[in-house]
């Protein structure tokens, strides 16, 4: 090797190599990819006929779920994938190499983000064109929020994987981290109608803004300031948690 590039905080080549590697791993696991892509579609389909008599309810819950699915799937996939990376020793090996922590995280975010785009595009397309989801705004904005949600899920999954010693524990973080947000995000009842304490709590949980953002697109033709605020909050949360996740990657471990 003549002149190996030094390890910088973020190297485009190493990030894309990592993303390509993650996607290559997924390609050897078509069942996981199939499940990730088909299940949201199936759930939306189910939901449409659960609310057969009330199309309005399907509109609001359907739009919210379009934001929640990518968050949950990416959370699960990332937490297990990074846990495997930690337990198999490949993380230790990578961190002994000139790989920046940012490269690894950005690589994962890029790969799972690409998968999330496919997942969200299919689910949104199905909901809007085949199941009659009545969106006032542009479906592209729905897709944008879905993508940010996926990033948030990736970030949360990466972060909690540091606190899981086994796959069993990692899976248990799903109900611990995701369910409270699911209950408080305004999916079941509007956030204003909750107990004031819970309402405040829901104000600081990122999923609330993901769902709010989806509902803004549902009700308004153009980008409202509320929509911009919601998406910015979700994006900022994703970035913050990704940074926290990077801090859990240690080159030196006991």
């Amino acid at each position, binding site marked *: *090797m003549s002149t190996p590039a030094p390890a910088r905080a973020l190297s485009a080549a190493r990030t894309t190599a990592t993303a390509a*590697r993650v996607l290559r791993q997924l390609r050897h696991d078509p069942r996981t990819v199939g499940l990730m892509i088909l299940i949201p579609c199936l759930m939306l389909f189910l939901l449409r006929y659960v609310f057969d008599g009330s199309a309005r309810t399907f509109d609001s819950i359907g739009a919210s779920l379009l934001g929640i699915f990518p968050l949950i799937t990416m959370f699960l996939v990332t937490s297990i994938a990074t846990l495997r990376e930690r337990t198999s020793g490949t993380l230790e090996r990578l961190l002994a190499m000139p790989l920046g922590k940012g490269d690894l995280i950005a690589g994962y975010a890029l790969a799972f983000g690409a998968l999330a785009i496919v997942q969200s595009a299919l689910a949104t397309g199905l909901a809007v064109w085949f199941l009659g989801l009545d969106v006032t705004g542009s479906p592209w904005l729905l897709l944008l929020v879905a993508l940010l949600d996926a990033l948030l899920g990736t970030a949360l999954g990466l972060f909690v994987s540091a606190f899981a010693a086994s796959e069993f524990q990692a899976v248990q973080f799903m109900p611990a981290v995701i369910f409270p947000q699911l209950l408080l995000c305004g999916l079941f009842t509007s956030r204003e109608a909750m107990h004031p304490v819970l309402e405040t709590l829901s104000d600081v949980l990122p999923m609330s803004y993901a769902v709010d953002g989806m509902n803004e697109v549902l009700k308004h033709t153009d980008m409202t300031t509320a929509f911009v605020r919601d998406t910015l909050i979700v994006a900022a949360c994703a970035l913050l948690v990704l940074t926290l996740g990077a801090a859990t990657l240690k080159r*030196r471990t006991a």
Partner: protein
Amino acid sequence: MMNFSSRPTEEPAVHAQDLTVVRGPRTVLRGLGFTVPRGQVTGLLGPSGCGKSTLMRAVVGTQAKVSGTLDVLGHPAGHPTLRTRVGYVTQAPSVYDDLTVRQNLDYFAAILDPGRAAADRRREDVTRAIADVDLTTHTDALAGNLSGGQRNRVSLAVALLGTPELLVLDEPTVGLDPVLRRDLWQLFHTLAAERDTTLLISSHVMDEAERCHRLLLMRDGEILADDTPDALRTRTGSETVEAAFLHLVDRAAAQARTKETTR
């Protein structure tokens, strides 16, 4: 004070002084001092649990709570510039089971030597590393479908990428059949002789000690001896390194007993 064999002017590949490592409540390494000369095969031998892996992790820079002096290739262990110069193989193979042998190596090569301009160099490097560990016929097999020994060799091939100056190998021949073990030791000596690589190889199998240029004998977080196999045998009047090791252990135990009784 030390005899660095052929090149006395050159600094050693690894130099440790008063090296101590604490893991939880235990002190795993206790004030070690040793050197690993360049371009040679140094064996790190001792029973399981004596601290061999911790010592290797400290050299590679992945071990936390290390105190004392530990210089590797002229830099403090774990220094960023060492990340391309030191190859490391853990005891358990650290490769991606859901990638093929070549895909594994392609990825790690891209981390070591990134960029499109280096693509040709990387391809050669990967092909050579696979040939080095004799897995050319399994290039496109999924790592997860290989046998334990084969996966170990994939892990070793990753460490050979980029021609590192120092290779730290944690029990690389465990669970391999005699033919493969002989072949791998031949490879280690070729690396030292032809590519001028320094190798630090741990093992708990004493007969492998005879194949090393130098030996570090470890027990209970301490180094019992730092010498050549010949010198060790002569010094202890033993036939084999194993006997020499036992002799040293007994002597250390006897010394400890006299210390106890005189106290």
